[in-house]
């Protein structure tokens, strides 16, 4: 997927977010040095191509009372993982769901789902719902809680 210099300049201009001014796309246009209509057209195009997932807000689960955010990891039969991954992704308490490689023998898990609960009991109860959904196709699972944020910054590209 190619990214031309103007797209790149638009991305660089919005790395910290969309400007909080009445005409944000005009503000980006001024910064990049192109017309507002072109900025809007390029945003629409990047959305269509999937370079931008969406334009919107990312809520902080922790600040909203979801204090027990567990990374649940599952050892799921390879031939069933796509079907089951899609179903887990639709659960309303799962915010991310990915297939990742195993690293045997240390790490047998190939399906990751982030589960958000107000406390660990709630997160565990939700993980139990996933366990029931997976049934015999899941050999083992664990919940990893974060105990400390060591670093948190956004994605960075250089101008």
């Amino acid at each position, binding site marked *: 997927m190619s990214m031309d210099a103007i797209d790149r300049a638009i*991305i660089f201009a919005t790395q910290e977010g969309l400007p909080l001014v009445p005409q944000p796309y005009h503000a980006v246009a001024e910064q990049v040095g192109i017309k507002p209509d072109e900025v809007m057209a390029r945003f629409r195009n990047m959305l269509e191509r999937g370079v931008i997932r969406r334009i919107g807000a990312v809520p902080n689960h922790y600040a909203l009372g979801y204090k027990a955010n567990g990374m649940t990891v599952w050892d799921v039969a390879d031939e069933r993982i796509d079907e089951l991954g899609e179903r887990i992704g639709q659960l309303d308490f799962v915010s991310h769901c*990915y297939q990742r490689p195993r690293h045997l023998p240390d790490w047998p898990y190939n399906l990751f789902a982030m589960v958000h609960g107000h406390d660990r009991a709630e997160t565990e109860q939700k993980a139990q719902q996933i366990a029931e959904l997976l049934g015999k196709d899941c050999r083992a699972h664990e919940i990893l809680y974060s105990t400390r944020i060591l670093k948190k910054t956004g994605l960075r590209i250089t101008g």
Partner: protein
Amino acid sequence: MMDSLDRGIINHLQGGFPICANPYAKVAKQLGTSEGELLARIRKLLDDKVLTRFGPLYHAERLGGGLSLAAMKIPPNDFDRVAEIINRMPEVAHNYARDHALNMWFVLATETPQGLQNALGAIEHETGYPVFNMPKVKEYFVELKLQV
């Protein structure tokens, strides 16, 4: 404290923000408030860290870069030294301590796939511990749905 307008804003803004000349005015109208009030509320939700971001959410791999989740197993008495090495790398976006034998988990984002391999190699070299690289093989559809 958040009020019902804040909650409405959080719920509404998780979906697609409009692309038009005056998008905040358009959303304000849907929420029954003014453009100025909406802008002030978004600013405050960001300042208070109720929102971690507002704007376009980019898809790193489709920008041609590298993105991966990696984990390491670090002895407790060496944890801080390793955390310091990892945290000072600009390629590392997030780093979390987790309660598991694999006790350090971080996300790497680089401008090129080769940059990712270089960063992983540098971490192994500088820390002296192996890195478990877990790039996503597949992403399953997740709906936007955190309702407050």
